């Protein structure tokens, strides 16, 4: 045999060995929980925060001895912000890793993509972030500690009307989440008698909104409503609207007042109002979670969703303690329906028959650049949104 032939045979042999060697040797004692978050792409900011908060909670639980001595192990997949990627991630988690309980996803679009599969397979899908109203109807195994945009929309519509806004222009990112926010807000606003004079949508990957904004501003609305999926585009829209000379009030939701959005917009963001869920400053637990998170990761953004993701893990741990089996999705589901929880995002909340929780939103207003600090996240609370 020549050297070439020997080399070739060796190569083939090595390949075969590799194939044999890579068997599975799993089944330790830990509970396996899947996590799907948008770690890259449009939902990067909140997916990352959420996944870090979950990891922090799991580490706390494991450090305290786990659940009756058994540890929790998170298997994280990137569901991006799209249904397609969520389906891929879901299939991997259930087929390859064999999990039955999945915490996630971050984006409504991804949630709506994976939900029908989870419902059909009997896998629990439990999100701390997805807010599209349609998720309520997605099925028995679908839960979330994020509030439906149905509530947010009513609050937004009321707030707009109460501030004397009668004509509105909307700019909306073409994603499930942003469309949900727009739809519910506009529905309530129009119910009260308001009129939408102009509307524009944009795909997630553009960075120049001036032509759309020019048309919106030219329609002479009392106010501009922004529904964005990414903090970056939310902040950029605010900035470019001001650059184009729009001086009316701007309304949005939590994304528009996120840390990155405010940094991008700078001074232009001052006075922007957002209707959002905010952590109660008197809730000791919430404040402690934020402190720990800052100590561990050196930043905090979207505190309410951080708390929501954190609570999800503790709720999961409690239910695992009751069922004692991470493959028992049905038991886990029943446990969730029965549970009443007090955590970072609120006291004594529980899931209704659609797997939803209901807490309340507040109106926040962005502070001038000089007054923004890490502590106040750059905005001040104006109290509960008006009810009618």
């Amino acid at each position: 045999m020549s050297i070439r032939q020997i080399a070739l045979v060796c190569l083939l042999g090595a390949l075969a060995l590799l194939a044999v060697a890579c068997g599975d040797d799993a089944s330790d004692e830990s509970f396996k929980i899947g996590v799907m978050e948008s770690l890259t792409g449009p939902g990067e900011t909140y997916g990352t925060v959420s996944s870090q908060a979950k990891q922090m909670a799991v580490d706390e639980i494991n450090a305290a001895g786990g659940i009756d001595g058994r540890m929790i192990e998170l298997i994280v997949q990137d569901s991006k912000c799209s249904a397609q990627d969520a389906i891929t991630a879901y299939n991997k988690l259930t087929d390859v890793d064999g999990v039955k309980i999945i915490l996630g996803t971050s984006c409504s679009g991804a949630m709506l993509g994976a939900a029908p599969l989870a419902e059909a397979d009997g896998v629990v899908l439990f999100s701390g972030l997805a807010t599209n109203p349609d998720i309520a109807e997605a099925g028995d195994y679908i839960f979330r500690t994020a509030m439906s945009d149905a509530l947010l929309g009513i609050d937004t519509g009321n707030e707009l009307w109460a501030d004397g806004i009668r004509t509105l222009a909307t700019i909306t990112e073409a994603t499930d989440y942003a469309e949900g926010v727009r739809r519910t807000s506009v529905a309530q606003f129009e119910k009260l008698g308001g009129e939408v004079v102009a509307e524009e949508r944009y795909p997630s990957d553009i960075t120049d909104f001036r032509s759309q904004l020019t048309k919106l501003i030219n329609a002479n609305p009392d106010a501009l409503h922004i529904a964005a999926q990414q903090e970056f585009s939310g902040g950029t829209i605010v900035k470019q609207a001001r650059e184009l000379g729009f001086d009316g009030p701007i309304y949005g939701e939590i994304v528009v007042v996120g840390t990155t959005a405010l940094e991008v917009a700078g001074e232009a963001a001052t006075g922007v109002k957002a209707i959002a869920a905010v952590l109660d400053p008197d809730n000791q637990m919430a404040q402690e979670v934020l402190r720990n998170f800052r100590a561990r990761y050196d930043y905090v953004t979207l505190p309410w969703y951080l708390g929501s993701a954190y609570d999800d893990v503790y709720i999961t741990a409690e239910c695992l303690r009751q069922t004692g089996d991470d493959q028992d999705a049905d038991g886990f589901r029943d446990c969730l329906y029965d549970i009443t929880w007090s955590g970072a995002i609120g006291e004594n909340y529980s899931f209704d028959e659609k797997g939803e929780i209901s807490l309340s939103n507040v109106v926040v207003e962005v502070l001038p650049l000089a007054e923004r600090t890490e502590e106040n996240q750059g905005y001040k609370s104006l109290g509960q949104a008006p009810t009618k």
Partner: protein
Amino acid sequence: MSTDSGGVGSLMRAAREPGVFMRLARGNLELWANLVVITWAVAFAIWQGSGFAITLGTVFAIWAILAVSLNLVVGFTGLLSVGHIGFFGIGAYTVAILTSNAQYEQLRTEAIPTFGWPFFAALPVGIVLAGLTAIAVGVVFNRFRDDIFVLVSFGFAVICFNVFLNSRALTRGAFGIHEIAKPEIGSVAFGSEVAFLILALVFLAVVVLISWFIVSSSFGRVLTAIREDERATEVFGYQVTHFKLTVWVISAMMAAAAGGLFASWTTFIDPNSFILLESILLVSIVILGGLATIWGSILGAMAFVLLEEGMRFLPFLPDEYVGQARQVILGVLLVLLMLFRPQGLLGRYRL
């Protein structure tokens, strides 16, 4: 015509006479390309087990149909079309819209009309629709060639993507379409992964057969002549335009069939599957495999699929970078091929 037998033929010969192998292999890039990709595929299938291999097999079959169909245009008419993904999308969206059985759809932001057709009724509609589009587009694009054709075909891909994204009443835009039906023939449903893989391979076989028939018929010889010297062929009295348009339309219809399969396989599509970048990647597969060779395109598609999945197991490469890393490799491969082997790995014809 022996366009596609070179690689396989030499492989067969090597299998019969092991002693000849080394002599054959020396400096024989085609043989090496075949050997590496096939060994890789087999090793991968053994390593990952049948479940993953079946999934990959289906992905491969869809890409292979696309690559073979595009190769008809690029390899036999010399028109470098970067817009092929548009026809793929037309097929996919037609099947999706016609078959989506949308109990759950109606919940969502913008409800679309539902038809609930079976897959095999919707697929021909998609194919015909793509064919009609191809005729319209082909008539307009006929006057362009070389770099301008590349530019306008970029345009076709961008226009298709934007139509998918923005005509919300029809395609539900960025939200995508869920619950696309799986194929059924009578009582036989291709619900399982294996059944679907078989169906996809059958489609691939049909596409390859049609392509082979086109290539080896007198029609194919005229095409070759056109590619070599368009003016001369015209002088001989052939209607060059008609020949080009026919191939273009057939190729578009094949791509639409692949699109229908894709939609039905994933059961969910959104415009992100039909972006310009995918189209560029498809062109790179065709060029990589080699122009004017059917087997080359199939091999190119196989290498392409394996490249991505193979890289998932590189320990130093985080999962989210796999797609990007593949793109880097493809880009570099394109440059190297253009530099050293402009006809592609198994190609007969230089760009």
